[in-house]
């Protein structure tokens, strides 16, 4: 059944690649948004699901990736080839600093220290003019690379899809590698890992930086798509939302992160759209809240648990 877990995501990716040009502008936009969020969620899954490090400051890296893209583009625009690595580098760099300091703590304290560092970044963008202040800043010309121009909807679609496939594949590789095995060990029993001879701190820091850089990638894509960035991107609400997505999807599975991102976004979209739910759309908070509560009550292992319950053998 191992095959299914590699086959299914691949099939989805191919399906998306084929369907891309057929989508209406809005649908394509929506899919791109969901894919960006999936990358963001996957990057957090590396921390939470795979390493057991619950971070409530992950949006900082996402936001830094986005701001880097905009600030480095200036008024003339820039190349994907420089902007993308730069966004990942800046996000990863901040993750290095944050990780190095916050990994001294654990559990809820870790959650709160990551939150603290994210809030610091948030206030730097919100309260100073460096990034345009609280109203944010525009990206006047979207990144390009030769014929690839993010101004073009389809280009953006494929760049984002490729990034998603890359992220998913990278994390899947990590998951089955020795690095991933060590991270899993750290999640379950850090004490034993140290006793066995693993430099646990180094492993955790590496995971933290990779996760930060991948969040930066998502941030780059977001900025390229939206053409505007705002301090709210770094806010704790955003960190919280992405955390909710991966919990909803089911921790410990890459598919869970993607499913969570998709379901959370689609659910909200559906519940707040009059065309689908009529006047109830005005009360989307109520319906979404009830839906979430129902999920928690009925699906102890997240949405991925639902799939497992339907076909217990279908998961490896």
């Amino acid at each position, binding site marked *: 059944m191992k095959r299914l877990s590699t086959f299914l995501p691949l099939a989805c990716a191919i399906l998306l690649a084929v369907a891309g040009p057929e989508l209406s502008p809005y649908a394509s936009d929506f899919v791109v948004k969901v894919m960006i969020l999936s990358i963001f969620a996957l990057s957090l899954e590396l921390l939470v699901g795979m390493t057991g490090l619950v971070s409530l400051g992950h949006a900082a890296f996402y936001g830094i990736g986005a701001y880097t893209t905009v600030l480095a583009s200036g008024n003339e625009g820039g190349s994907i080839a420089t902007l993308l690595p730069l966004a990942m580098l800046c996000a990863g760099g901040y993750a290095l600093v944050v990780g190095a300091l916050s990994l001294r703590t654990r559990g809820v304290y870790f959650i709160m220290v990551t939150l603290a560092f994210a809030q610091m970044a948030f206030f730097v963008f919100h309260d100073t003019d460096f990034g345009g202040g609280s109203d944010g800043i525009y990206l006047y010309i979207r990144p390009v690379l030769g014929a690839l121009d993010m101004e073009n909807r389809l280009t953006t679609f494929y760049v984002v899809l490729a990034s998603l496939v890359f992220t998913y594949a990278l994390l899947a*590789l990590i998951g089955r590698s*020795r690095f*991933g095995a*060590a991270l899993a*060990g750290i999640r379950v029993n850090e004490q034993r890992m140290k*006793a*066995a*001879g693993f430099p646990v701190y180094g*492993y955790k820091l590496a995971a933290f930086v990779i996760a930060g850089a991948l969040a930066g990638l998502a941030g780059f894509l977001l900025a390229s798509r939206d053409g505007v960035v705002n301090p709210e991107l770094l806010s704790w609400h955003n960190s919280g939302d992405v955390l909710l997505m991966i919990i909803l999807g089911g921790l410990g599975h890459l598919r869970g992160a993607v499913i969570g991102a998709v379901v959370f976004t689609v659910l909200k979209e559906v519940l707040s759209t009059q065309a689908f739910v009529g006047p109830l759309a005005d009360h989307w908070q109520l319906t979404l809240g009830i839906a979430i509560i129902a999920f928690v009550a009925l699906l102890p292992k997240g949405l991925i648990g639902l799939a497992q319950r339907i076909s217990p053998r279908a998961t490896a």
Partner: protein
Amino acid sequence: MNALLSVSTLTRRFGGLVAVSDVTLDLHRGEVHAVIGTNGAGKSTLINMLSGEIAASAGQIKLDGRDITRRSQAMRARSGVGRSYQRTTIFPEFTVHENCRLAAQAATPRPWAIWQNAGACSASNAAAGEALAAAGLADVAHRVAGTLSHGAKRQLEVAMCLATKPRVLLLDEPLAGMGAEETDRMLALLEKLKAEHAILLVEHDMDAVFRIADRITVMVNGAVIASGDPASIRENAQVRTAYLGEDH
């Protein structure tokens, strides 16, 4: 003969409490060195300091003549200091085999090689297999560790220590919770291992200790009150009143 691990005047304080005070002892290859002593004497604390889990307040630890007092736990483990825990410390969600494979993996970490499958690492698998066989867990290798009975978990605890292929074994009550059969097996295993390893054995099972130990150190309230061969310890009046009682 040179000591593989030598400990001099090791001390650990917890606030006002001196849990281990001025302990000096040597571990040699080919020897099982038992450390016994009252509950709360500081035996586990001693092991914690030797393995690097907690820092020593004072004193020195040498491995092969090299000072390792300030080395991190992971570095010590990789240079050959292995330990088991008194309180079972396993990966309950993983299978028994995976538990050992993960421990063995520490020897060949290569974390950057993400294209390699951890489960297919032959060196780790081999080490894990050996350790499981030695500990008598081969037939439950594919059970999830958390569902083992208490006794089997204790066996796994020792197996994980063995899987890292240490030169020095620090075993904190490995026999606790094991039945008679498993105890025998474990003692036979230690007997076999001691040729190549230096073993520090903390244990309250006196029958076992006297059966296997080549040297015994007795601790009470953090301090060593006696050290010597088993016969002399058995006769030591102080040890009898403080620890052994009249049964042994």
